[in-house]
């Protein structure tokens, strides 16, 4: 799967987009030194809508993160690695996976800078902090410690994540990019183990700006639990069949973490009068009266994140033009540590010329909309295949 093309930063705004981008420069004078801002685009699936009755329209709110500036020091990272060392699934394959995980972790470590904070927590039946939060400068002794990890016991996943969070908290007040990377290859059997419970833990952690990235290894872990934890804390999730894919995963994840260009990103969509929110597709958000809110913990350099919202637009006459919504994005610039703001506004024109309407189709919005519907269908398929299954 290579979605990369699809999300790549696009600087050209298509001619049919009825979109105006405001880039409000908070410290405009320093623009030369500071990195460029996050750009917010709001697009509809068709730039020109058919005039007539009220209709449903898909809104795509895109956040284009600027590339990470080369001449400014990147935000420091506060990383906690939480490793599963349970021996419930003892066997050479799992042992190999664990060894690979350790190797990959060590490789990843070498990419951290001297000022970054790093900690390692391992869990089996109990939870142990084997590397308490410390500067990653002292890398060799950290590596030596990690290499001594031995497998055994049950799987206290909840405790592991909790301990990882507690290591992160040692530097919580400082201006770091907080991240827990959780590796698991087995079912959690000590501590809360319902996907919902771990989701709630994730939801609580994101309030402290801690995201949890989950990496499932092999086919014995609980993917529902792992994805829910990542989803609720706005982390990434990965599935690898064997430990040999782990170096790639760690590299990718560190690529994200070391490349943060916006933090505590809050997206507020204010709908115009008579425009009604119908549904949020894909991403989790909340609809509050005429406002829709999304929250993202971090944006990574040169990447695109978006939200899809279905809204209902009132009756219209041909040739008219209305404002559908205004989108306000607030975030923290991790370089200047100042709050920033971007705004996007979406307008809709109406026409009774169906050819004109058809030509104004925005394929990107349609594509992402369809792919997100597909994601929901995949989830539905899982749910269906689970139905009637014996409870374990």
């Amino acid at each position, binding site marked *: 799967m290579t979605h990369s093309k699809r999300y790549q930063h696009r600087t050209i705004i298509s001619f049919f987009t009825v979109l105006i981008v405001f880039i409000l420069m908070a410290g405009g004078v320093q623009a030369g030194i500071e990195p460029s801002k996050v750009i917010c685009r709001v697009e509809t699936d068709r730039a020109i809508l058919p005039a007539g009755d009220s209709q449903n329209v898909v809104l795509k709110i895109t956040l284009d993160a600027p590339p990470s500036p080369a001449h400014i020091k990147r935000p420091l990272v506060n990383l906690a690695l939480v490793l599963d060392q349970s021996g419930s699934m003892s066997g050479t394959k799992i042992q190999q996976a664990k060894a690979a995980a350790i190797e990959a972790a060590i490789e990843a470590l070498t990419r951290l800078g001297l000022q970054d904070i790093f900690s390692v927590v391992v869990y089996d*039946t*109990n*939870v*142990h902090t084997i590397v308490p939060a410390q500067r990653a400068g002292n890398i060799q002794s950290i590596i030596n410690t990690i290499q001594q990890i031995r497998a055994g*016991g*049950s799987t*206290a996943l*909840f*405790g592991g*994540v*909790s*301990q990882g*969070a*507690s290591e992160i908290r040692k530097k919580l007040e400082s201006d770091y990019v907080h991240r827990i990377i959780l590796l698991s290859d087995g079912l959690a*059997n*000590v*501590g*809360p*183990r319902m996907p919902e*419970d*771990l989701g*709630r*833990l994730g*939801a*609580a*952690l994101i*309030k*402290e700006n801690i995201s949890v990235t989950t990496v499932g290894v092999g086919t014995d872990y609980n993917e529902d639990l792992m994805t829910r934890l990542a989803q609720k804390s706005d982390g990434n999730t990965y599935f690898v069949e064997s430990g040999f894919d782990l170096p790639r995963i760690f590299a990718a994840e560190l690529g994200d973490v070391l490349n943060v260009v916006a933090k505590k990103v809050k997206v507020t969509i204010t709908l115009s009068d008579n425009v009604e929110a119908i549904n949020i597709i894909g991403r989790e958000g*909340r*609809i*509050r*009266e005429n406002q829709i809110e999304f929250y993202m913990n971090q944006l990574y350099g040169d990447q695109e994140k978006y939200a899809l919202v279905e809204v209902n637009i009132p009756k219209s006459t041909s040739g008219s033009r209305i404002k559908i919504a205004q989108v306000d994005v607030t975030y923290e610039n991790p370089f200047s540590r100042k709050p920033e703001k971007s705004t996007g506004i979406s307008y809709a024109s109406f026409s009774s010329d169906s050819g004109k309407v058809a030509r104004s189709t925005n394929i990107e919005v349609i594509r992402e909309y369809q792919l997100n519907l597909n994601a929901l269908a995949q989830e539905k398929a899982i749910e269906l295949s689970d139905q009637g299954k014996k409870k374990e």
Partner: protein
Amino acid sequence: MTSKRSIIIFWALFLVPTLIISGIAFRLLSHEQERINRAAIQALSERAKTISETIHITVEAVQENLTQSLLDIDQDNLQKTLLVWEETNPLVRNVFIYQKDRELEYPVRGMESTLEERRFITRYDSLFSGRMKFDFNEDLSKDESKTKGVTESSRQKLVALSRVVQKAPVSDQQALFPAESEQSFIEKSGWIPWFSENRLHILGWVQKIGNGPVYGIELELMALLSRLVVDFPELPEKKVALLLMDGNGYFMHQSGKMTVDPKERPRAVISISNLLPHWQIGVFVDKKGFGSTRGFLYVSVILLGVFIIAIVSGGVLLTRMTLQNMKDARQKTSFVSSVSHELKTPLTSIRMYAELLLSKRIKDANKIQTYLSVIVSESERLTRLINNVLAFGKLEQGKKTYHLTIFEMDRLLDQMIQSHSIRIENQGIEIILQIEEGNYKVKTDRDAIEQVILNLVDNALKYADKGKFIKFVLEKDKSFILLKICDDGPGIPKAQQEMIFEKFHRVDNSLTTKQPGSGLGLSIARQILRDLEGDLFFEPMPGSGSCFTARIKHHESD
């Protein structure tokens, strides 16, 4: 026989108390093990109690602070503040504002709310619909604070005290009779542990103004738990575990390395707090006990085993020695009597013939000659016998000294056969001599070897007197000279073949009853040969008869 039985009885008397004592010791040991286990569980329970107290205090403090913060909220900005709380405070799962006799103000029922909020409303529907009062559990908590005051630790008391101070403006009367005036501050508050879908939820509420809204938060238990488990102390012991368990008995957190089966029952259970009802800390101990105390048991059992073995083997040894001594004593008695007999026979002959000669009634010179030779041969026999007894005595005491000289064995054998040929042939036994060609030089004690040969010859004459021949064979082995003295007598039964070399032993059958003897000859012969680095052993002749082989060290082999 009676003495044997008495020894066995004595031994049994000795053994039985030993077994009884060891049995008691073993029971005491296992009791000790049990006691140690109990003590360990007790200690673990104490730790669990400390932990649960800490949890209780923490949760209590959290709730106190949240209540205070809720009360401090500016009433005009209530909803906004609460929403900010919900967004930023990990401990806040949901917030609500409820106005009595009106709809729930926040969250609103219906599709305006998120799924989580809708579930929240459903969960507490009986409260939010007004069917149940928020302070329904007030009595309960009041009762608790009364009883708790007696048993609580000082720290808890302090917290409780601070709560009382905080709650001071709250008066029950006020609660029961809502004040007339709209702006009367009553500052009622409470925490409700709430079970829904078999899971614990905790709701905190406050009402600041008499007619004002009841508002509050739902505590995020997962965030609370996440913070609590981090402070759970680690247990270094391997075979024990403290497990934090929720109301359904699920393991929330474990301390200690023991692998606990979810079905296993805890050895002790400590309730955590009324603030987290049905949550417990279970104490688990490996059924096989702890590693350290196990070791104690093993060591004790080994010690006990060694003790028992020592006692039993000591008893066996003593008994055996006693039996041996008894046997020796019997043999000595029989030895004395047979030696006396042996001595008496030649003495009688010597005395009789000497008296005859003394009476001078015997005139026949031939007869006189015969009598004298009998006296000589009998006294020779007596000498040999006494020599044997003397040799035996010396050998027994290890005082026998040997004078080593170099001589030729074949020569010695020739001389001895010559000097004893008359005695042998008189018994009608033929002498056969086979000497292989070669050098038979030895360096050994000549007298001792003579005594050995004499003993073997006497033995053959004594026990094979019905035989036809006595055969002397001299041959050479690698470094030994082998002297075989064989006869064609009745031989020796297989079972006796090694015992004949024991001192005092005589093959106890018809043969020996006719033939008196000391039972020393063979024993002495073997002892002498062994002292001189040789040996003596028996081998049966083909057909019947016996053959004794003496191994004497060759001089040149040195």
